[in-house]
């Protein structure tokens, strides 16, 4: 016991979090992330790790250190919707890659939060690009369900996961159809069966929020207990397809307490996903991918289902994306869909978000295309993805009470020439160095005359 206590003390000492600093940035161009246009000569104040105020005419409270933001832009940190941050090192090095579990007997129960590595270069590189929060999901391996995603912050501390098991992810696109056995019909049958098995399992297992047990008392942003932990019942029906873990993991999806992110592209497939709400009214859906969303934009808007959509794909790379266009997001937005730019997985790195958003602004000058205003485009990589992740007003926005995630840029953040200069997460200033910056520093000159480059660090 004594040993345990000292071990705990040691670990606390090692991981003691940096203390949030109060700060104010004045004289900057401030984009609050809420969809509004940038404000000239504005001020941002952060105290105790939270935003206190942002805008013009904001007074700096006495005692708060001031940073001169003249000539700079100040924004909330970027919120990247649907990333694979922290789950892999090198794509072609299988051992380093926890995104996919092709040979696993489990699917829906896979919990990304246990694998996320806060020291991953992908997190460090993204942080250098101004990304401060993200949702994380794996890739489908053995099933249409790729598992339970997490919400993370990208701060330099081990406390990365803000919310584990924040949502379930399912592929109902061509990939899902192949994984389910070869067709879209198989994917839909598998999904319906899974939800019914989950409902049935939930009803017998004593999981909170099901018929056998009332809703758990929630105290705020606490996590409900992992349903897998409460059940020792092994007796189940004879024709079940899901493992007990997977069935348990889908209980919160079936009862609507955990959002279901659905990867889907073709217009007809999107309609089929929206129609699931007729059968399973409690489903809390989010569409992901959505290449042909613009063709069914009014349906998506009417269903009140948000979307995380590709920004720039405009080729019929698959038959399910024949109508792909860079105007997709703009047209959905105009139809009333809550739409964020994403997903950012694999080679679509989260730090590319500003370039994607900037391109949608550029579309405004192209006859026949539908783009976004600057404010809308910036919101699509900050406040909107935060809202979709259930953090509306908490992240991706410079509003009183929001996390103190602040980025100072050397210019318009959506422009190709600009980059973050300083980044804070929860009011803690973050290091912006990584493997790439160290290589850059080493090879800034090619002088190898005194000693090999290996001594240059």
């Amino acid at each position, binding site marked *: 016991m004594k040993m345990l206590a000292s071990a705990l003390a040691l670990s606390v000492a090692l991981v003691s979090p940096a203390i949030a600093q109060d700060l104010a940035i004045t004289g900057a161009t401030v984009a609050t992330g809420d969809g509004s246009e940038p404000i000239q000569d504005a001020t941002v104040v952060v105290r105790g790790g939270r935003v206190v105020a942002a805008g013009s005419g904001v007074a700096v409270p006495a005692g708060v250190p001031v940073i001169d933001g003249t000539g700079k832009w100040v924004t909330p940190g970027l919120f990247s919707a649907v990333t694979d941050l922290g789950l892999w090192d090198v794509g*072609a090095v299988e051992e380093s890659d926890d995104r996919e579990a092709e040979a696993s007997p489990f699917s829906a129960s896979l919990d990304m939060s246990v694998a996320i590595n806060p020291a991953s270069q992908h997190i460090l590189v993204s942080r250098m690009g101004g990304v401060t929060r993200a949702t994380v999901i794996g890739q489908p391996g053995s099933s249409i369900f790729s598992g339970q995603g997490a919400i993370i912050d990208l701060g330099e501390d081990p406390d990365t996961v803000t919310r584990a098991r924040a949502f379930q992810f399912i592929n109902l696109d061509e990939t899902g159809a192949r994984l389910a056995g070869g067709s879209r019909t198989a994917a839909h049958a598998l999904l319906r069966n899974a939800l019914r098995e989950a409902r049935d399992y939930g009803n017998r297992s004593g999981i909170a929020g099901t018929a056998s047990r009332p809703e758990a008392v929630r105290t705020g942003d606490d996590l409900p207990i992992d349903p897998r932990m409460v059940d020792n019942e092994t007796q189940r029906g004879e024709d079940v397809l899901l493992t007990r873990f997977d069935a348990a993991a889908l209980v919160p999806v079936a009862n609507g307490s955990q959002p279901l992110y659905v990867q889907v592209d073709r217009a007809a497939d999107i309609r089929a996903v929206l129609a699931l709400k007729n059968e399973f009214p409690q489903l809390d859906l989010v569409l992901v991918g959505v290449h042909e969303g613009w063709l069914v934009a009014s349906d998506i808007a009417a269903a009140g289902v948000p979307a995380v959509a590709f920004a720039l794909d405009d080729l019929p790379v698959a038959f399910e994306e024949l109508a792909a266009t860079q105007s997709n997001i703009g047209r959905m937005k105009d139809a009333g869909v809550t739409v964020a730019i994403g997903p950012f997985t694999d080679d679509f790195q989260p730090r590319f978000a500003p370039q994607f958003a900037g391109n949608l602004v550029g579309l405004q000058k192209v006859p026949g295309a539908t783009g976004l205003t600057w404010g809308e485009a910036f919101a699509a990589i900050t406040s909107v993805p935060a809202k979709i992740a259930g953090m509306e007003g908490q992240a991706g926005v410079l509003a009183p009470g929001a996390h103190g995630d602040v980025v100072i840029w050397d210019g318009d953040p959506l422009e190709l020439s600009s980059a973050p200069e300083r980044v804070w997460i929860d009011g803690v200033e973050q290091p912006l160095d990584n493997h790439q910056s160290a290589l850059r520093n080493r090879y800034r000159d*090619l002088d190898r005359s005194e000693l090999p480059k290996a001594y240059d660090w």
Partner: protein
Amino acid sequence: MRFAARAALLACAAAAVSACAADQTGTQSASAAPPVSNPYPSTYAPYPDRPTALVGATVFDGLGGEMRNATVLFENGRITGVGDASLGVPAGYDQIDGTGKYVTPGVIDIHSHLGDYPSPDVGAHSDGNEATSPTTPEVWAEHSVWPQDPGFSRALSNGGVTSLQILPGSANLMGGRSVTLKNVPALTVQGMKFPGAPYGLKMACGENPKRVYGGKGQAPSTRMGNFAVNRQTWIDAQAYDGTDRDLAKETLKAVLDGEIKIHNHCYRADEMALVIDMAKEFGYTVSTFHHAVESYKIGDLLRENDICSAVWADWWGFKMEAYDGILENAALIQNAGACVVIHSDDQDGIQRLNQEAAKAQAAGRRIGIDISDAAVIGWITHNPAKAMGIADETGSLEIGKAADVVLWNGDPLSVYSRPEKVWIDGALMFDANDPKRRPVSDFELGQPGAGDVK
């Protein structure tokens, strides 16, 4: 029509390479060696053009020159004048107001698989890697190009791409011959072939060949195996006297004779250095290292050997060879005095080569390497043209060059800009203001989204 024929002749003369000469002489000896060196000749002819004056724009000439409020003239498919506002507009020229806009040479992608890996990306279309033998110099990329790939039109309308090199993929040490295309819609690949452009040979270092063939339990399964197979193949090619036709050795002999350019997929600095030695061992030169993410470590070596680096701005992390990729790569290469090309290897990236160049420029600026906008435009125009052997014909705005021209609706190094008009050999092939001046491939016709602005 008359103009078109004349321009095509000009193109052949200007490029002055062996493939053109073969048009006239090849048939004489068709029944015996030497073989017809140009058996699939270009049938490309420029489309009808009008004498055009672009007036008042900022002009980047592709060679590092920048002029504000400039005038660019072209007629009969050729640039006829580039100068300041004092350059008069000749009678009969259509005058286009370029105020607030920018003019550059047509963008050139040195590394594309459009047509060989077209959209839709389905197995039936997978024609880019003849992954059945580690060396396949006998295959020609042009025999795989599907001219109906919708990717060509997106590269034109969003990227201002007027010429592009289609390479075989990187599964093989020697993947086959490349083909250089004019980015015009055509029913046949011959209708797109850049007249007189030299062939390239695609080679690949490192992980891909050893993975593909090692996975089959055959050589090469290691990097040393890669070199052993390459060297033996070159030794065999050196011994080839051309008596009996051998497609593979014909290509390799043409490399050794300096007629075919080497485009070598190679990420790592140490491997590039080994390839440079191998090229010296067998007496050929490397035009360009593609995907050269570690060129920044050996900018001096690349400068000394006059080898271009074709790079992305910021691809990283997808394989071990790419793990040391940094944003400052292009700027550091340029700073070392070596040749930079921004390439795509991607049907999406080819639509934004200008933006990739801008990102790479900005990364350099942040570490104190200030490269002018005009020089950066050269990364996607003149430098690829030079590396592909077509710089006598395109890649810069100079009198006599092909009128491959992009009018941008704003600064091409800004994320907010797009091509407004694109001319190829003086013919207006894209106009953002004219919905009909936008190609729709056969595949897209009658499908959802056909003819959309994309």
